[in-house]
């Protein structure tokens, strides 16, 4: 159904909402990706089960039953499925970055945009960062335990926001105000 919508009007709308200002397609897509990554992946899949923070900076207790796919993990006696889900969610994000579809065909992505800006170093760093996060995940048998996974995830956010966003002139916030 998504594909249908996309090949219909959505694609045209996406392309017509050009530029990089806040509210443009590119800006919205990248900013939503960051929310997805920071909140849904980092906090919900990792932060909450290991007991990082609740709302308003209140510490919460670790609760391993809050991992994704808890009952499957319980049934199988390991967290392989949970970790696979985590990995897959980050792979989706990388696909978007690379412009790859689910079949693995590489089309135009942000990596190509960076190349056109002659910023291949940023591209290489982003790819290396994805690889680093995968190896962090692959090296674990459980979400819980130490917090290296939780601490390692944000490096990609830093890279996105300080280098990718800068190159593309995408802002992560826009004041309800004039600028000068």
């Amino acid at each position, binding site marked *: 159904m998504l594909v249908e919508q996309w090949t219909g009007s959505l694609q045209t709308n996406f392309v017509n909402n*050009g*530029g*990089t*200002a806040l509210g*443009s397609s590119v800006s919205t897509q990248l900013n939503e990706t960051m929310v997805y990554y920071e909140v849904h992946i980092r906090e919900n899949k990792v932060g909450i089960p290991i007991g*990082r*923070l609740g*709302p*308003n*900076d209140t*510490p919460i207790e670790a609760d391993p039953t809050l991992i994704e796919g808890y009952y499957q993990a319980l049934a199988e006696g390991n967290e392989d499925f949970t970790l696979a889900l985590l990995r897959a969610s980050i792979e989706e994000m990388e696909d978007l970055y690379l412009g790859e579809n689910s079949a693995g065909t590489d089309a135009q992505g942000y990596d190509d945009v960076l190349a056109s800006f002659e910023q291949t*170093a*940023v591209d290489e760093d982003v790819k290396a960062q994805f690889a680093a996060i995968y190896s962090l995940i692959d090296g674990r048998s459980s979400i819980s335990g130490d917090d290296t996974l939780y601490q390692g995830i*944000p490096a990609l*956010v*830093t*890279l996105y*926001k*300080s*280098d990718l*966003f*800068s*190159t*593309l*002139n995408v*802002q*992560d*916030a*826009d*004041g*309800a*105000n*004039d*600028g*000068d």
Partner: protein
Amino acid sequence: MTGFSTKAQDFLFRQVSVAPLVTLRIALGVLLLYSTLRTWQKGWIAELYITPTYHFGFFSWLEPLPGVGMYWVFGLLALAALGITLGLFYRVSTALFFALFLYVELLDKTYYLNHYYLVTLLTFWLAVVPAHRAYSVDAWLFPHLRSTQCARWCILIFQVQLSVVYFFAGLAKVNPDWLLRGQPLATWLPGKYQLPLLGPWLHLKEVALLFSWLGCLYDLTIWLFLWWRKSRGLAYVAVLAFHLLTYVLFPRIGMFPAIMICGTLIFFSEGWHQRVLSWLPGSSFASDGPTAKTTPLARQKLITYGLGLYLAVQLCLPLRYLAFPGNLFWHEQGYRFSWRVMLMEKNGYTSVILRDPATHRQHEVRQEAYLTPFQRQQMRSQPDMLLQFAQYVGDAFAEQNGYAPEVYVKSRLALNGRRSQPYTNDTLNVYAAAQPMKQNWILPFIP
């Protein structure tokens, strides 16, 4: 009294036509009224001053009024702007506008804009000069106010002020990023590819460089051409072209182009202004009222010295950054109040880390729980705001727990199209540090 100051006084207090001041009063009045209503209509009063729980005040004791108080402030601003336009209770209107605008401006560094600063200065001088002597409700109501003339300094101060703005804006552009790398325009322009005519060219580095050089030359010299009678007409065409182009390219620049386009009218001759004003209903310049209102000698002296002091401050403020070592764009000490307009694109990612010295537990402060996205974005690249926030979250912790936390700032920023680099020393506990800015808390900039 020395010969120089007598001569200066003769020059400054020579009687000239008040017409340029009257046009300026009406034009700025309309703009200020529009700008105030626009702020209201766009919902910015609530969004900027009521919704945020924390404000980066220029003074810690200065806070937005509670409840609907800020709506009263903007309501009064609108009334005052109307008063300025009509010349109704002019002294009260200008003083009120100046005071309230200054108050609003100082509430939060997030919203600092050079043209708000300019509005503060212009309305201060409007409150001092007699721009209500003609074509005003006051002059109609109170005949003793009427006059077709004013002292020359009343016009000069606006001309000098605008020259200062242009000159320092131009001087600030004389830097390698702007002139040699075409930055930040080279970062900003490519995204505007959908603009008609210009769009297809904007991704070219050459275009960014061309615009950079033209902008720099424009700012450095336009005020000279506005002063010079022979080039004035053409210079004003350039003023229109330049500011309209900046508005088309950067719509977020808001009221700034309009303020400069109206403000620079002050450079036109008396005759020009009288002709423009003659289209308006009401008193004409040939009409009644005493022509000259001489200023008592003691007051002349006071005004002369006052003007000298003001000019000195205006020339020194933009240069105060020289007192701080390092790259101004990086550490931003002495950046504000200096006519540095659209010089930087600074992006990055910043975390504020709170550590409990008792339990050794540390966590990243959820900035979104305290700050709006706009405040977060502005805080990221401005060290004094980062320190204010660190103090604020530290105080909140201390109040809750009865002992001081450690606060660390971990940050990477990219300046003007470069790769990002570490911004702060994340091992310095800024909550305990007496003078972080002097303790190399901001890491040196690597070009």
